[in-house]
């Protein structure tokens, strides 16, 4: 009986084996076809998204924007394209994370759809500060030097690295101004952030899904707008690269494991709380072992990038210094001398090179130290003064920020419960926040803190869906992730595109600004409605600027009530060889949206000056007007 049973079992195994062999012969072809079809699906969806985006662009009229910015003029096909892309990404990242090139294409497409759109639609450089940065570049091109004691923008003359680099690029390329390429800086910097983030996330986890989902969520939640032609974007890119290099190739756990690869082991094993924490660093990722020459070269790169940050931007060096200090103190990275080196470089620059700026501003910097409440409140627009659309935009931005912080905290806790204590990422989330105590950074510190913490908050946000390698296999995680992505994209579009009415400059505004800077006499007084126009991009140091909206409240009230006599008094000042009043569409948009003056103030001032017999119009087109005094003349 037992023999018969054994024989039947053997027969059954043989049949199974033969069937498996048969399947093995026939299945691969079918599986391969199915596999290829599965791969074609995301490619087709990306193509659909790109098609929808491309057919959206020709119908957009930026001039028609309302106070919710680009959202008011983008057609439904644009949003459909983003939804298709999101669905395709969610499917691919959760089901086929091994298709790295496809995931790369998804993120690339998203970046292009978001960040190339304004450059393509406008045809002019967006955002007034970008124009001002072109102006500093222009200064270096003309003078071959900087003037650290200059009245306007002296911070830029004390941290001129970014501008020197652009002066070099512009002159070497034979261009007359950085304006020729500055519109594409936003796309460029986002692509650079992309590469740097991949390096960082690969050092934090081996889970390919988590890496790509983190990248995705970073770009969905980076609504701050610090990605334009600016030293901050430049410094931030280098910050990410430095953190990526250090976490990937100079993490202490890897150093220990690579003992046989010529790497030194720390002289004293870590003890106490820090040692306990250090033992729990993130995922124990094994990276390529470093040869001594590679280690030297990587450290040389880090030092070159550190130096570039130190002489290019005021805030980023301190963010990097804090990050290096904490990562070294908690035993996450080596060499331990890096924070010391960075500290010496920062202090040397601040106190021995940028002395004109430091001397002028040290007191105000010290006085804002510790004033957390004012440092925070200085960052937010007054919702009572803003237009309805801007209130919605502000709420969306604030809501998105709070949601990211909340979801990131939840993701951190979820991963912690599953046994992942992501010390490095946690430290890098926390490190920027003490800056709130230190300074208000011109009313922007809150946003910069979010910006620097964001890569690691995006990692934890993704960790909410993928706390372990085994999680996220069911349908729930991809569906929830896709739904959350769509929700975030809605908030992101409001927050990121919501101020475009004031950031966009029409060709007519640019023509007027060109006329002004091409014809105004050196030493003239330029009275601006606000600073929001294609401003100070040429010969900027030759003029004195007075934006009306920055005047004290009483002075503004007097100007609005009686602009002709007030302006006549200002412009009659013989200290200046000539005086001009410049008012544009974008200035009016800013005033009416943000509420720096009562809505309609600049329109009213323009009308009254037009009606006044004391002023004449020197130049005008449909979006801008330049006034001069009749009896003085430029």
């Amino acid at each position: 009986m037992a023999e018969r049973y054994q024989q039947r079992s053997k027969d059954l195994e043989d049949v199974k084996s033969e069937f498996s062999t048969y399947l093995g012969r026939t299945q691969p072809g079918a599986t391969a076809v199915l596999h290829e079809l599965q791969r074609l699906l995301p490619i087709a969806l990306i193509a659909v998204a790109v098609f929808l985006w491309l057919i959206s662009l020709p119908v957009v009229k930026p001039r028609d924007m309302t106070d919710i910015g680009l959202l008011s003029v983008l057609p439904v096909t644009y949003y459909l394209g983003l939804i298709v892309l999101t669905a395709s990404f969610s499917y691919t990242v959760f089901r086929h994370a091994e298709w790295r090139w496809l995931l790369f294409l998804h993120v690339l497409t998203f970046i292009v759809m978001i960040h190339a759109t304004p450059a393509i639609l406008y045809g002019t450089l967006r955002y007034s500060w970008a124009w001002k940065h072109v102006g500093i570049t222009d200064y270096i091109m003309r003078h071959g030097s900087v003037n650290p004691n200059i009245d306007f923008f002296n911070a830029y003359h004390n941290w001129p690295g970014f501008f020197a680099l652009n002066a070099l690029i512009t002159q070497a390329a034979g261009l007359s101004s950085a304006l020729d390429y500055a519109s594409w800086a936003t796309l460029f910097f986002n692509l650079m952030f992309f590469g740097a983030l991949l390096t960082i996330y690969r050092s934090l986890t081996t889970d390919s899904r988590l890496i790509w989902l983190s990248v995705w969520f970073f770009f969905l939640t980076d609504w701050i707008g610090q990605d334009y032609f600016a030293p901050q974007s430049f410094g931030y890119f280098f910050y990410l690269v430095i953190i990526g290099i250090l976490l990937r190739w100079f993490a202490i756990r890897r150093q220990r494991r690579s003992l046989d690869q010529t790497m030194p082991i720390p002289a004293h094993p870590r003890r106490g709380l820090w040692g306990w924490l250090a033992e729990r660093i993130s995922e124990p990722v094994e990276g390529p072992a470093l040869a001594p020459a590679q280690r030297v070269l990587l450290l040389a790169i880090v030092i070159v990038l550190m130096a570039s940050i130190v002489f290019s931007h005021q805030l980023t060096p301190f963010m990097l210094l804090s990050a290096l200090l904490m990562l070294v103190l908690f035993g996450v990275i080596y060499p331990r001398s890096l924070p010391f080196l960075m500290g010496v470089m920062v202090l040397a620059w601040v106190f021995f090179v940028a002395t004109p700026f430091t001397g002028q501003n040290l007191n105000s910097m010290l006085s804002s130290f510790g004033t957390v409440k004012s440092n925070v409140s200085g960052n937010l627009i007054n919702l009572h003064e803003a237009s309805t659309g801007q209130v919605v935009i502000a709420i969306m931005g604030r809501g998105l920020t709070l949601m990211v912080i909340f979801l990131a905290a939840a993701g951190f806790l979820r991963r912690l419960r599953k046994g992942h204590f992501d010390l490095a990422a946690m430290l890098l989330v926390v490190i920027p926040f003490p800056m709130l105590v230190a300074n208000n950074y011109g009313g922007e510190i809150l946003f910069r803190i979010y910006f620097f913490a964001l890569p690691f908050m995006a990692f934890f946000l993704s960790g909410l869906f993928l706390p372990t390698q085994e999680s996220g296999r069911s349908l729930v995680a991809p569906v929830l992730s896709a739904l959350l992505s769509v929700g975030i994209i809605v908030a992101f579009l409001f927050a990121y595109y919501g101020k475009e009415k004031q950031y966009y400059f029409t060709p007519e505004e640019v023509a007027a600004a060109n006329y002004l800077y091409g014809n105004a006499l050196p030493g003239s007084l330029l009275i601006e409605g606000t600073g929001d126009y294609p401003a100070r991009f040429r010969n900027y140091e030759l003029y004195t600027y007075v934006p009306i909206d920055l005047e004290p409240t009483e002075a503004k009230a007097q100007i609005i009530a009686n602009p002709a006599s007030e302006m006549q008094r200002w412009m009659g000042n013989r200290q200046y060889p000539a005086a001009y009043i410049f008012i544009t569409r974008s200035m009016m948009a800013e005033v009416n949206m943000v509420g720096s003056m009562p809505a309609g103030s600049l329109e009213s001032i323009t009308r009254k000056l037009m009606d006044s017999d004391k002023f004449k119009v020197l130049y005008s087109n449909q979006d801008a007007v330049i006034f001069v005094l009749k009896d003085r003349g430029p």
Partner: protein
Amino acid sequence: MKMERMDLSWLLPVALMVAGLLTALVVLTGIFPLPRLVLVFAFLFLGPGLAFARLLPADDIFARVTLSIALSLGIDAVVAMILLYMDAWSYQNILLIIVGITLLGSILQISHPREPETVQEERE
């Protein structure tokens, strides 16, 4: 059976040296505006970094390209700043120094070639 791949490691450094010299030529002579624009952007954004990229441990193309661009811009910025603060600003001289650094990195690559990679061909 072990097959040795053709050693093409000299190709990139040689291409970089040629690109550097061409860039210097078009910038110093001011001829060919369009090629000048393309060459200058490509060279300043990638050249110096790629000259050292072969020595980097990056294990994927994304990291390698990002590091190359970051290093290129870093070197460009440092050289530009040094000449700016020496009151010796000259974009031609800055470019020549950067070309020199690129040549140095390229020569290093050629003089320290990586071991030729081998592939194991499986016998059926």
